């Protein structure tokens, strides 16, 4: 098979599959409830003892506080990912908080928060 034909097949195939998936509504991201956020955290850290869950209003992220730690669980495509907040930086923007996790496999998380939520998250993060 010529390289040109292979390239056309690969690029055309990928484009067609991705376009069809998007048109079929497969690009929607997970919206969590407190319960599913809790389950998402425990899926990653099954030994963890969750103290409280603070869910963002859009259901796309939650701040998890445990008896020994704190972390984030956030929607990642149709699923979720969780990380402990050990070494991170915070960037505050007008409607979002961006967590820079210093993790090559999960570099950053942007959380959409309203003003009340932002104050709540800040106070909880400062108390860690």
């Amino acid at each position, binding site marked *: *098979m010529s*390289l040109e034909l*292979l390239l056309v*097949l*690969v690029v055309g*195939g*990928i484009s*067609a*599959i*991705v376009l*069809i*998936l*998007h048109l*079929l509504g*497969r*690009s929607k991201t997970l919206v969590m409830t407190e319960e599913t956020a809790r389950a998402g955290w425990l*899926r*990653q850290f*099954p*030994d963890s003892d969750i103290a409280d869950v603070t869910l963002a209003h859009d259901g796309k992220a939650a701040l998890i506080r445990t008896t020994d730690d704190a972390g984030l669980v*956030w929607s*990642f*495509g*149709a*699923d979720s*990912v969780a*990380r402990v907040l050990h070494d991170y930086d915070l960037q505050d923007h007008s409607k979002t908080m961006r967590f820079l*996790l210093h*993790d*090559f*496999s*999960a*570099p950053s*998380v942007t959380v959409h928060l309203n003003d009340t939520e932002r104050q709540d998250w800040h106070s909880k993060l400062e108390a860690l």
Partner: protein
Amino acid sequence: MTDQITYPDVVQYAVPFFVAAVLAEMAWIVIKGRGGRYETRDALTSLILGAGNVASGILLGFIAWGFFMFLWALTPLNLGTSVWVVLLCFVLDDLRYYWVHRFGHRIRWVWASHVNHHSSQHYNLTTALRQTWTYTFTFMMVVRAPLILLGFHPAMVLFVGGLNLIYQFWIHTEAIGRMPRWVEAIMNTPSHHRVHHGRNARYLDANYAGVFIVWDKLFGTFVPELDEEKPDYGLVQNLGTFNPIRVVFHEWVGLFRDVFQSGLTLRQRFGYAFGPPGYSHDGSRDTSETIKAKHLARNPQDAGTPGFS
């Protein structure tokens, strides 16, 4: 000894089939409302990794090929190219695949390459295409050396390896439940391979087979899929990025950061590179053994059941 034997690059010829099969699986899921899940960015990442795998084969394939031809020049044996020799080569290469795959889960240096195949939280035909770009750097081509030294031509060895890869494509699906009993007994099937992709403690480090599941049964790594425990696909610590570069290289980055951190002994550095995934010098991380032990501590009733025996 001749080196003029050529076989078709079957993986390249299979590309149209891969695309058609993915579209057929998507249609099946949409029409039936069951049989798996697709997510756009996840599928795109998988497909880009598949394309990159083909590209890396084109760019770096000469390294393995040069090594194999070096061995072919050394060996006095030549088994020829009869159909029976090709079939024998296919079976022995599948045994080779089993061990390379097992090393890929038990040695971090090899896992750093293989991990991206397991990095999707989905399990569909695009997951099959989520392949490594860095296999050459694992040096696992040495495991093929015995085949060539036994007299199987390098072109034949690569040909049957391509067939092995194509076989494994169709087993990455939730659209097929169980195959007939005799197939499940001998062959690697969607059910057996779903177990392999499970991050459940029960399913870790199981079912390394490529084509014949008999290798797992022979070497004690077979775990059946349990109806009461659906595989939870992905990594023990799932990735928070769809960026293909990060997916491909994240474990290599982690490995080198660990190896070159200050204050370690040579043995500890060696452990981070060649120990099992999850090794840590201070015990702060979990290997599959400690994950299983912790699971049993939480669920003692699972002791002695498949995956915990």
